[in-house]
């Protein structure tokens, strides 16, 4: 992984830092507001676009000790208001429920990147049921953020596997039934759209309107917001681009759509990403590329130093063009729309 990372750093054909310079932009870290924690690489799905390369075969899990260390960081830093739990399917980590409950006790806003189908599929290896999840989320007022590539079966199953769309619809219905997505309740259900191939997302606002209309008219389903996310040209998606001989074309598309406003709002300025083994990164993508934050030494949750982190240089590379193209892209959707 490290070798891959070094190769990427050397690749200067798509020089993101130079692009920032051309636009007189500097993007130092700001106050850290969100700790995004990847608790497992295991997933019940194996999606085409997945930059984490998750699948049922992955076994990497965050330990209880590392989970406790993350909780300690949250307790010691009131400025970190949000815990964003991701994976894989994060619910497949055996300490997931504990992590959510303890973070809520600390008064943190907890978000979970929930793939919907895990509720129905359960754990692909232990066969443990996850049918309790909608109720668990509602009882603990967790913000649920769920991928749904499209409001139709075709695009969704093409990207995420046969049968995923119908299972996602069933799971969304279960979330609606416990109060999610209803404007009158405070239970927030957001959906995430990412393109099925080598193209940029449509306008977040117009797609949200389409999703709301179609999901309501066809399935009587509700949700709060739609986030549009650009596919990052790394790992499984990059391999697909290279296989179809469209990597360069996609990179040029991202670069031509560079948006300085989106660049100023990139998520790595206010977020830290923690891997299952406690290493700390600028974002989930740098995590997957092995580009660990290095201050005096590689930073982990076991030697967390807030002052060093806000004074660090964010590691930038060619994939960063994915976050700054068009309306921009972040874990909270479009940046400048």
């Amino acid at each position, binding site marked *: 992984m490290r070798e891959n990372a070094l190769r990427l750093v050397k690749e200067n054909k798509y020089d993101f830092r130079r692009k920032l310079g051309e636009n007189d932009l500097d993007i130092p870290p700001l106050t850290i507001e969100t700790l995004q924690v990847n608790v497992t690489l295991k997933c019940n799905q194996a999606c085409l676009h997945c930059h984490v390369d998750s699948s049922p075969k992955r076994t990497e899990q965050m330990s209880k000790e590392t989970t406790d260390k993350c909780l300690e960081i949250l307790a010691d830093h009131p400025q970190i208001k949000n815990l964003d739990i991701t994976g894989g399917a994060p619910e497949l980590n055996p300490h997931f429920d504990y992590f959510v409950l303890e973070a809520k006790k600390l008064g943190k806003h907890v978000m979970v990147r929930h793939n919907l189908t895990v509720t129905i599929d359960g754990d692909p290896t232990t066969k443990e049921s996850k049918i309790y999840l909608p109720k668990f989320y509602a009882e603990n007022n967790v913000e649920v953020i769920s991928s749904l590539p*499209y409001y*139709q079966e*075709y*695009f969704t199953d093409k990207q995420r596997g046969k049968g995923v769309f119908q299972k996602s619809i069933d799971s969304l219905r279960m979330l609606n039934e416990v109060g999610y997505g209803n404007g009158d309740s405070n239970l927030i259900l957001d959906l995430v759209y990412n*393109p099925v*191939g080598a*193209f*940029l*997302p*449509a*306008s977040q606002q*117009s*797609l949200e309107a*389409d999703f709301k209309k179609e999901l309501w008219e066809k399935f009587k389903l509700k949700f709060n917001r739609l986030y549009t996310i650009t596919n990052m040209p790394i790992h499984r998606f990059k391999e697909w681009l290279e296989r179809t001989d469209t990597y360069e074309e996609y990179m040029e598309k991202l670069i031509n759509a560079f948006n300085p406003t989106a660049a100023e709002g990139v998520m790595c300025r206010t977020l830290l990403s923690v891997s299952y083994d406690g290493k700390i990164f600028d974002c989930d993508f740098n995590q997957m590329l092995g580009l660990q934050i290095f201050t005096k030494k590689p930073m982990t949750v076991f030697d967390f130093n807030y002052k060093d982190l806000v004074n660090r240089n964010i590691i930038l590379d060619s994939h960063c063009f994915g976050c700054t193209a068009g309306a921009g892209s972040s874990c909270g959707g479009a940046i400048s729309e």
Partner: protein
Amino acid sequence: MNYYESKDLGRFAEVGKFKPELMKKFFDYYNDATGTDGALTKKEKALIALAISHFKQCPYCIDAYTTASLEAGANPDQMTEAIHVAASMAAGMTLVHGVQLLNNLEKAGA
């Protein structure tokens, strides 16, 4: 080498190498007409352009407006319906000239 190379689409602006002021006028007009939300949305405009691309059988335009339609949020059902509109219009345009045929037949006393 073929007459149509998909990468040549990226060289479209080079047509302004000579008489650039005319090309600029075209691009300003083109971008205003096709690339903005107005009384029609960008998605509707992209689907119209996709239909015309097929009707006029322009390979560059089909490439460009397949992507533009996707990036405007259109789905394959909508894009396919758009080209059926173009195809049925083309068929209608052929068939409506059948009236000319009827007129000629009448004139000929057939």
